[in-house]
């Protein structure tokens, strides 16, 4: 079996008395889509935030690309190739879609401490940024401020940014949410191809998308992993049916 790109072990995170992450082990292997599912409040976003570095775990380790990254900050992890999207879109609202992606390109292509050369005419920034927007189908909306994009478009823009980062692993927190059936279908097709580029840890409520895409599924309930395995194993798992999919699902 291939060495995992990302490996979480023994992760614990409490908010007061609430154990939002309860001794979680999880990994992400090259070329796969690993779906993370669970009811609302199960701790999926909390887990993503710890992997991305936005939250410090109380215990446990996170390894990425062969190195322990548990102590690193968000920016450093992003530079090493962890590309994330947020459950609630988080963009620079005044900047156009293009400038949002250009920010990622500039972060990757070297220093942000360049004080004079204008970015707008700089093809080294606009070129890759446009390419990323085209891939997610947002090229015609490149000049629109992020604040004026539709909800679904903002989700697409977040993915374009993660693409432009040249991410070695994607952490996608409910990318389909609020997208509509047409958009979900298109995104499903897109993510299907994306896994060849870099593996995806996919938090998603849309079960059609999850069953269509996932190589493996991990089920989180009250911060604990209650099951992990192939789509078939999870579909048949009695504990999952009871706790999450609901009887008869």
């Amino acid at each position, binding site marked *: 079996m291939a060495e995992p790109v990302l490996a979480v072990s023994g992760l614990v995170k409490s908010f007061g008395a609430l154990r939002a992450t309860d001794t979680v082990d999880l990994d992400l292997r090259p070329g796969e889509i690993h779906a993370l599912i669970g009811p609302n409040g199960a701790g999926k976003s909390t887990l993503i935030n710890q992997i991305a570095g936005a939250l410090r775990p109380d215990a446990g380790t996170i390894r990425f690309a062969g190195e322990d990254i548990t102590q690193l*900050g968000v920016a*450093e992890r992003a530079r090493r190739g962890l590309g994330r999207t947020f459950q609630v879109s*988080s963009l*620079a609202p005044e900047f156009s879609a293009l400038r949002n992606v250009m920010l990622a390109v500039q972060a990757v292509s070297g220093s942000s*401490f360049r*004080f*004079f050369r204008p970015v*707008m005419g700089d093809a080294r*920034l606009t070129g890759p940024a446009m390419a990323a927007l085209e891939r997610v189908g947002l090229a015609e909306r490149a000049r629109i401020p992020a604040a004026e994009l539709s909800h679904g478009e903002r989700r697409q823009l977040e993915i374009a940014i993660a693409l432009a980062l040249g991410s070695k692993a994607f952490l996608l927190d409910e990318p389909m949410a609020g997208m509509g059936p047409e958009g979900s279908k298109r995104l499903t097709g897109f993510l299907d191809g994306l896994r060849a580029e870099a593996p995806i840890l996919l938090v998603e409520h849309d079960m059609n998308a999850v069953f269509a895409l996932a190589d493996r599924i991990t089920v989180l309930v009250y911060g604990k992993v209650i099951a992990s395995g192939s789509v078939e194993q999870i579909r048949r798992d009695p504990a999952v049916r009871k706790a999450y999919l609901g009887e008869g699902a």
Partner: protein
Amino acid sequence: MRGRETIIGIALMALLLVVPAVASQAGEPFYVTLATRIAILALAATGLNIALGLGGLVSFGHAAFFGVGGYVAGILAAHAMSMEPILLGIPGTKQMLVIWLVALAAGGLLALAIGAISLRTTGVYFIMITLAFAQMVYYFAVSWPAYGGEDGLPILLRNQFPGVNTLKPLPFFLICYVLLAAGLAFFALLRGSRFGAALQASRQNDTRLAAVGIAPYRVRLAAFVISGAITALAGALFADLNRFVSPSMLSWQMSGELIVLIILGGVGRLSGPVVGAIVYVVLEYVLGGITERWQLFLGLVLLVVVLFARGGLIGLVAGRARHG
């Protein structure tokens, strides 16, 4: 709408050049001094505009940088006059070019120290901690007798610039004007650069900035240092204009004045500080001649701007700012 803002900006800068030139011809040096004051305050506010406008860092302590620039000019000049070395045999100087470099460096270093600590906080805490640092500098200047303490430090003869008679109002105005133009050009370039993109993104959403791999703290700190350095340069000019530097340049009222200038003109707008400085100085002159309480009227204007023209006066005439 950047097109219209550019035209208005150029028109105002032309006006700021023509008025003192005509006034000087007409034998009215007072108006030249007024225009010089506008140019210097606009430069100081342009420095603050980098931190406040582009980075969203509401520094209530920029008087510290303004005043330190002023004291650099005053102290170097005093030692040049007395021929006593400052420290370790370093002599004073009357050369503006040297004074400016020292002021830029001193302002930048002070901003590095203040910013390194203050930028660990945000929002109201940032406002209060920058204010607290500036007050510390203020009380230090008040209680340090070597350079005049509370009474301040006179500059007996305005400092010198090669080939220019700085004692005459118009040539000195032109020096300040050129530095303002350079400051504005610098601001425009910075805003459009990679660094400017990161800085403006940090104001809009620092979570996003970090998520693409750019640590917001370093970007903000660099911006704060640049901002403090430019405001200190303006402070050196201000001391030379008044031929006097005193702790009042370091006071919190001065910090507030710079913020007011920017809010009046337009936060983060290239011509915001110029518009703000013109309105401020003209109001001060016109209303100040009528009543001691002219700041009451300034307050009213400010209130109207904040309530009805969030983009400042420049936003009112040139529309909202747009980023490509």
